[in-house]
């Protein structure tokens, strides 16, 4: 496992992230234009969705597909409750802030997922193509749990049908699921046609994206003063809690080693696209610096650098044939 961790640490992807963090901490003016960062994220979502769909088309629909989706939804609903409890124990933050943070950890980070697939690809390990759909299914339920936690306290959270539609139809989900369906419909034929765009340069593009994520995370770290020690502890512990829950679910369902690793990764990761936007609308009184900093500047780096090799090692020794 140490080997794997080291190999991961020395991958261009992780080093690009580290470069971004270092640049931001040193207050360099290195930055990626917002439009370019968004363009790259569209590329990544499209590529990962399409490849997942095409792989599903080739390998056929598995009996475990439905179970995996169900497991994802349950994990997304349940993890915020565990997270909330943990956070109230470890940190002194308010109920509302704690609930908002917990919601992020039930949902998922698609870049962490992408980095996970790239670790699998490097190790030559296959995984279920539909894990992309599981990722999409896990985005929203956690938001409901967070809002329920908040409304149980004195504070109120507004969940209009409008917001509900916004959450379910947010751009990332639509693109991920849409390209998944396109990949499924066009199969390996379609994949071959656009592979020189979505397969070969994928890892390189991911480097630039992680450079940008590193810059943003580094900027976040400079504001880490908003977090008490307990919160930081939570940001490092909660991914392991999530990964363990994901592991149990994967073993029950009987996913392959690759699929197990990805479900662990999803469960361990914390949202920073869909959930923050929903929280701003529904719970404006929750402090965005807390959840953005925790998710992006603490948990994301942890997962990228240490989490992924851990999840892979565990998954390989416990799951699959």
């Amino acid at each position, binding site marked *: 496992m140490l080997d794997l961790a080291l190999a991961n640490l020395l991958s261009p992807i992780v080093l690009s992230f580290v470069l971004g963090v270092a640049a931001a901490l040193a207050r360099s003016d290195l930055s990626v234009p*917002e439009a370019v960062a968004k363009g790259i*994220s569209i590329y990544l979502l499209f590529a990962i969705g399409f490849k997942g769909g095409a792989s599903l088309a080739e390998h056929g629909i598995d009996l475990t597909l439905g179970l995996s989706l169900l497991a994802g939804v349950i994990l997304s609903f349940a993890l915020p409750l565990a997270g909330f409890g943990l956070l109230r124990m470890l940190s002194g933050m308010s109920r509302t802030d704690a609930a908002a943070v917990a919601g992020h950890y039930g949902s998922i980070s698609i870049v962490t997922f992408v980095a996970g697939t790239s670790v699998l690809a490097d190790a030559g390990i296959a995984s279920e193509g539909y894990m992309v759909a599981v990722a999409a299914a896990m985005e929203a339920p956690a938001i409901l749990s967070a809002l329920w936690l908040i409304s149980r306290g004195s504070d109120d959270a507004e969940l209009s049908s409008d917001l509900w539609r916004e959450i379910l139809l947010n751009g990332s989900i639509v693109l991920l699921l849409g390209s998944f369906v396109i990949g499924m419909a066009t199969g390996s034929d379609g994949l071959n046609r656009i592979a020189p765009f979505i397969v070969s340069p994928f890892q390189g593009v991911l480097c630039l994206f992680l450079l940008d994520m590193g*810059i*943003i995370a580094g900027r976040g770290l400079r504001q880490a003063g908003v977090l008490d020690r307990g919160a930081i502890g939570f940001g490092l512990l909660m991914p392991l809690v999530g990964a363990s829950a994901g592991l149990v679910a994967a073993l029950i369902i009987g996913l392959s080693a690759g699929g197990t690793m990805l479900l662990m990764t999803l469960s361990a990761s914390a949202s920073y696209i869909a959930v923050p936007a929903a929280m701003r609308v529904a719970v*404006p009184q929750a402090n*965005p610096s807390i959840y953005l900093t925790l998710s992006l500047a603490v948990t994301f780096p942890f997962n990228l650098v240490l989490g992924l090799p851990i999840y892979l090692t565990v998954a390989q020794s416990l799951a699959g044939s």
Partner: protein
Amino acid sequence: MQTHDAKRVEITIEQVMLRRLTDALEGADVTGWSVLPVLGGSGRSGVWNREGQISRGTGMVQVVCLIHPNKLDSLLDAVFAVVERHIGVVNVTDAQVLRAHRF
């Protein structure tokens, strides 16, 4: 050139709240506005900066509305209902406009 009294209302608001704001404007019978991007800023909730961001949860925009003075109050009521619980600032200046029939 003949000009006419008007009010220039400038609302700096979170991007996630934009659609709700323009819906409220329409509800208040205000149908003219322009949205300008904001790159970054500072306020009571800290400093922010749009560079490299992919999160849809961060970032403000500026909505500029030119209106007839007698519509100001209903506009401000509508705007206030949206920004009340959210971060953001609203300012009004006296202005002169050409082609008053448009407002």
